[in-house]
């Protein structure tokens, strides 16, 4: 019984931590603002944005869902 309670507690708390840590794709409004861009140069920013999207893909990118290959 104690073990069961412990497992349930771990699962519930890990579920909470997931919600606290991960910024969901629909919560990225402020990340999408121009001032949040790391590179002020347009072309460079676009390239870095592409790499960011590929890297972010597994957790949902800013604009499109990709598998991590960067081919789409």
């Amino acid at each position, binding site marked *: 019984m104690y073990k069961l309670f412990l497992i349930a507690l771990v*699962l519930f708390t890990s579920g909470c931590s997931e919600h606290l840590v991960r910024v969901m794709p629909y919560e990225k*409004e402020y990340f999408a603002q121009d001032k949040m861009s790391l590179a002020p140069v347009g072309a460079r920013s676009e390239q870095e944005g592409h790499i960011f999207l590929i890297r972010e893909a597994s957790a*949902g990118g*800013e*604009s*499109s869902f990709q598998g991590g290959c960067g081919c789409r």
Partner: protein
Amino acid sequence: MKKIILLIMVMINLYAAPRVGDNAIEFSLTDLYHESKIVSSSQYNGKVTLLNLWASWCSGCQAEMPLFVDLQNRYKKNNFEIITSSIDSSPSAAVDFLNEVDMQHTLTALYDEDKSLPKAYKCPGMPTSFLIGKDGKIVKVYVGSLDHNDIKELEATIQELVGN
């Protein structure tokens, strides 16, 4: 051990996002253009719909919106309707963008201030679109922006569902 596995399975199901074949989530949201008008999902019972969750700050959402306007123009709204639900923090940003790409207000535009639909659907990306059949069940889920080829594929499915 069996109890633990059962518990894990129940918890996974509780956290699972709606999938293809599941009932679409019911909603009641305000119209983006007319704040006082409430639009409910029950109004679309018996109709094929495409529910698009979007935001004006999302570049992929911006890219696919004109394609949705074209698609809606090819179908009468009593057969197939595209419902867009904006999650912008400011509805005016969404209205400004739609006024540029959908001047005739062809698309049904809703405003989801609390982001209730993306939360309920546990959207893994923006935009996300759900093709919903006449029976209210999810037929297809599209995560990410749709391009011309995706729209062609989508249209073929719509024609099957509409029965043309």
